């Protein structure tokens, strides 16, 4: 057989068949994996109408309050709030794949704020979400792609140079997740010399660098990957916000959260454009829902489903550097 004829001959059908078989084999292997991420984060997914009621029971601003603030006036005219955030954050902001509804503590606050300004009651239409990442948040606020960012956005002095922060509206902190039965890690100091996974878009990496400088930090893109890394032994521990870790541990019996209080204090704020003048308005809104108990109700319906005990006392507005 000459080189020519062998080069030109085609066996397309055989090729297609073989690669299809390979694909099926691969996908079958991945779907049997025990570390598949949970579709609903064990959060507020199932109680939509109750959740929606909490949002629409929130306060509505008076016309004079709206007219006194150019930012709020603009939102009222546009009829909805352009929110920057995520749709894959269990407990904080998670989209239900079936209904398309966005629920969670951050999502709920953004909907409450939109309801506060527009007075509309169709929760789904109150906000329009643009997915933002750590790499894009400040820029998208500065160029007004979004009106506000609700994204477990930790207030830091560096970030406060770029954007305004309303709040803090929630004080959280980082905890440690380990494989079930691991007793060698009981505090943050034990992370020295260990491999620690965390999300690449979380300030947890900074906390680990500071408190356990000898830890080897692995940055993964999302929560499910970090959990899988711990479960499969790639990482000894996973450090992130306690609420999120508790949610993970609830849906995945192969891992556990190290007991005790979180080892950091992480104040979350609402990111706003510095030029917009929105900060006092949003702070006034936060004070109202703190006082009315709407904040606590939202907490109970979201984070409170995995963190035991009563809703905490809301943090004091403007109490941290950068807010």
């Amino acid at each position, binding site marked *: *057989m*000459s*080189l*020519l004829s*062998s*080069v030109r*001959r085609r*066996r397309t059908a*055989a*090729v*297609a068949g*073989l*690669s299809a078989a*390979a*694909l099926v084999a*691969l996908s079958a*292997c*991945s779907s*049997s*994996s*025990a*570390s598949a991420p949970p579709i609903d984060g064990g959060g507020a997914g199932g109680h939509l109408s109750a959740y929606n009621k909490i949002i629409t029971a929130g306060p509505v601003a008076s016309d004079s309050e709206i007219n006194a603030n150019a930012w709020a006036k603009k939102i009222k005219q546009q009829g909805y709030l352009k929110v920057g955030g995520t749709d894959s954050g269990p407990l904080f902001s998670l989209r239900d794949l079936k209904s398309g509804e966005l629920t969670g503590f951050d999502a709920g606050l953004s909907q409450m704020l939109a309801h506060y300004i527009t007075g509309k009651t169709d929760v789904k239409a109150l906000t329009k979400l643009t997915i933002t990442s*750590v*790499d*894009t948040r*400040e*820029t998208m606020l500065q160029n007004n792609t979004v009106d506000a960012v609700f994204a477990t956005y930790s207030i*830091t002095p*560096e*970030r406060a*140079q*770029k954007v305004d922060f309303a709040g803090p509206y929630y004080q959280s902190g980082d905890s440690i997740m380990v494989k079930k039965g691991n007793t060698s890690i009981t505090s943050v100091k034990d992370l020295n010399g260990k491999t620690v*996974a965390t999300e*690449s*878009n*979380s*300030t947890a*990496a*900074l906390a680990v660098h500071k408190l356990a400088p000898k830890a080897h930090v*692995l*940055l*993964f*893109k999302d929560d499910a*990957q970090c959990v*899988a*890394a711990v479960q*499969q*032994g*790639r990482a000894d521990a996973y450090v992130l916000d306690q609420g999120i870790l508790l949610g993970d541990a609830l849906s995945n019996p192969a891992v556990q959260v190290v007991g005790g209080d979180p080892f950091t204090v992480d104040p979350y704020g609402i990111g706003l454009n510095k030029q917009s003048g929105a900060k006092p308005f949003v702070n006034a809104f936060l004070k109202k829902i703190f006082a009315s108990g709407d904040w606590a109700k939202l907490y109970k319906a979201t984070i409170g489903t995995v963190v035991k005990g009563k809703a905490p006392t809301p943090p004091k507005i403007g109490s941290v550097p950068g807010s």
Partner: protein
Amino acid sequence: MHLIVTHFGFLMQGVLFTLGLTVIGFVGALVLGTVLAVCRVGPITPLRVIGSAYVEFFRNIPLLSLLVLFIFGLPDAGVTIPLFASAAICLALSASAFTCEAMRGGINSVSVGQAEAARAIGFSFVEVLRFVVLPQAFRAMVQPLVNVFIGVLLSSALAAAVGVAELTNRTQQLNLKYAEAVVCFLFAGAVYLVIALAGGTVGSRLERWLAIKR
């Protein structure tokens, strides 16, 4: 800029990781791609079918999916490969499909008469390739292979998503702390650009050198 200067060492380590991934991935792709290309142009039907199936599979599966399957799927099957090695292997697997096609294109560009003449004077299949076809085919492969090199370099950034501390990953870490996305990513972009341009220059030199020799 101050930020880049202060953390220059940290970033340069990331550049080393990126270069390591690129070089290992590309060299692996060259070796594997050559074997595949020989399979695909060879006279043995089962090898041709395997070569074609491999190319169609790895050319069409997104590299990120491959990485996630490799890194989070294999441990469930009892095989845990370190992150850096996993990323390098995935890059090589994926790029070898493109390398194979670049080489096959080069081989097909050599006129048929050449191979027929070589066969006529009694060269075996391997000798036809080794002494007649490949030396001429290589010139036509240079630019497509430069494309593959640049593809590997840019795809190596995907390893950032699965925990390899290469340039993009370290850029994200810095941005996390200092909230300077534009500066950080401009720097990373410039580094990728410089490496890619260097690869392109080597390719052009090689092409010119081969042309003179002919």
